[in-house]
């Protein structure tokens, strides 16, 4: 057998087996163990850095469609803001908005958290039970920009949304620093475009780690989110007037450490 043919066979045969096994419904159990399958969907998803281009709507149809506008809810809200370390700067600025607009704000930052952790633990239920929010803001995904198992994460996001219950919510996407493997687009698909603030194209000033925005940049980021929350076609606009001063009220802040 030709030398190259031998070597290519060594590389190709396991590849064929791995892909065929991933597509096969049968699970192979060696004694005392189960042979893991390759997650084909995750592996063949968008590669790192690739951004999904949204379909451009037909302009005439778009104009003819009547967009339903909802009057802003002028009541004071009990807002629960949850997130990972990316949300740290946002919640600081959100305190200013809360005080300016008469909302009660509770903040939960869980370092190193992922949608998997939020979905599988009872942390979210605990804080919802504790604060009975009337509006929820979520900023999770900073630690999942390069994941492959998008299908599994999608289930987690649906579980999180289910835990929100009837409370209106928005989900703040993570501002890209090195692209992503499709996570942001997947979240947008799950929560709906109207509830998803797409931060990918924001050029935010980053701190020394080149990932997390500086507090100044996060403040501007939150201002953009606030403006977006008050747009005419927002599903549940609440009062988010731009604050003139820094908050003096100390709203509850829970800093949860990474899971060991």
């Amino acid at each position, binding site marked *: 057998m030709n030398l190259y043919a031998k070597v290519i066979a060594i*590389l190709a045969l396991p590849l064929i087996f*791995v892909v065929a096994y991933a597509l096969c419904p049968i699970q192979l159990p060696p004694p005392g163990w189960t042979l893991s399958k390759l997650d084909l969907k995750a592996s*063949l998803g968008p590669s*790192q*850095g690739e951004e999904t281009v949204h379909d451009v709507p037909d302009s005439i149809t778009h104009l003819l469609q009547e967009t339903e506008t909802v009057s802003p809810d002028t009541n004071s809200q009990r807002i629960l803001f949850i997130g990972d370390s990316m949300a740290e700067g946002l919640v600081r600025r959100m305190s200013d908005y809360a005080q300016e607009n008469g909302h009660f704000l509770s903040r939960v930052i869980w370092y190193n958290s992922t949608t998997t952790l939020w979905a599988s633990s009872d942390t979210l239920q605990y804080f919802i039970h504790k604060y009975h929010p009337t509006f929820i803001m979520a900023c999770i995904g900073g630690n999942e920009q390069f994941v*492959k198992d998008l299908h599994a994460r999608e289930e987690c996001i649906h579980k999180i949304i289910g835990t929100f219950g009837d409370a209106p919510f928005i989900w703040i996407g993570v501002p890209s620093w090195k692209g992503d493997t499709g996570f942001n687009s997947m979240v947008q698909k799950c929560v709906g475009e109207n509830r998803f603030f797409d931060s990918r194209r924001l050029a935010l000033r980053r701190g*020394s780690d080149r990932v997390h925005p500086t507090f100044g940049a996060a403040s501007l980021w939150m201002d953009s989110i606030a403006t977006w929350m008050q747009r005419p076609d927002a599903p549940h606009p609440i009062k988010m007037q731009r604050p003139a001063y820094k908050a003096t009220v100390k709203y509850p802040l829970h800093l949860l450490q990474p899971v060991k």
Partner: protein
Amino acid sequence: MIFTSIQFWAVFVVFLTIFALLRRSTRTGMMLYVTIVSLGFFYFANGWLMQTLPITALISWSLTKAMRQYNGSKRKAFLTVIVLLDLAPLIFFKYANIAISGLNDLLVGNFPVMDIALPVGISFYTFQAISYSADIYRNRFTMDVDFLEYIFYLSFFPLLFAGPITRAETFFPQIRHQQPASERLMYYGLWLIIAGILKKAVVADYIVQYNNWIFDSPLTYSGFENLMGLLGFSVQIYLDFSGYTDISIGMAALMGIRLRENFRFPYQSLNVTEFWRRWHISLSTWFRDYVYITLGGNKKGKIRTGVNCIVTFLLVGIWHGSSIMFILWGMLHGMALAIHKSMQHGLMRIPNTCFTKALCILVTGIFIVCSWAVFRSPDINTAITIFKQIFTDFRPESIPAFWTMRPTWLLMMVICGLMFFIKERYYNRMMIKFIYSPWLLKLMAFAFVAQLAIEFNTSNITPFLYYNF
């Protein structure tokens, strides 16, 4: 494209099949094919920024060709222009926004930063281009190379994204004479690919999870856990990078090109000088030949030797990135080298026993591991916190709990620790045994390692650490 991904594996199998067919027929056809595929990979990784590579290749090759005709000061001027033109895109993409941010801080300004991304691989092909021109300038490499050969060399995809930086004298004779790949070379390549997947996709990608927790918030963990994270990172960076270059060299071997090793059991080094002869050999020799020796090397007295060491390693630190931590790390190594070189004569008088060797390895190892803390930490406070935790909050009572909670991580670390100190001749014996083993055994070995990578897959793609450089 990550070398350990299923997409790359599938594309590589198809590529190799076509390569095997083309290789017999026409040398030009083969080179054109590989170059197009390489540029395709480069485009896939960098989009429109891929133009930087062919433009650099054209400018560098044509100016170097012109330089050959001159001598003396004109030849030197040509080299200066070539080096500056080669470095310009690298400096721009890597440091422009840092400079703008610095200017904003200095002048309390608000100049907008540019929306630019660093093209993956630019550091490596830039250094390769400079080494080619410099070697021709010094008459170390005299072969006349056409543009297709040059762009083949610069864009060669196994080396493109993270090295090793390959010299012209190693590469061009092999592609010019195009010897058919021997069975030994091909299976050597396969051995390296298997070793690389084991190092990178099985071990490094698994242990990184814990290491990242430590460096993200060291105060949350005990001193013992911080120490484990530090040791873990030392293992991780070696396996990640050496695994990647093993795969690169392995792929090149499958194409009949033999490249030099880039790592040679670096943690067995007796001193810092030896460490840099064993770690990232292609980069350290590049800086030795084109920076350290250019500055005068060790020919201008002890003090100047020390200064040359520090300056060279300052540049090594800057090459890694603009963060102050890389620069500090570079300076630490520069100072350590300067100190070692100044004490070398005295140290040679110490008897060469097993005990002194073990002590030297230990002392060197401690220095290297501590310097990795500086390299990896996002800021100086994190590095200081890690050391503070280790020395003031060790908490030995957390050791049994650590063993219970993380047995796999610990087992991997112990196995890696033992493998790092294996004698080179035992490693070479294992490699020879593999090369001459039956075909079926090789197939089973590759399949086993591939399945192991799937088993340990944490579902996160962890890009190669050196992708960022």
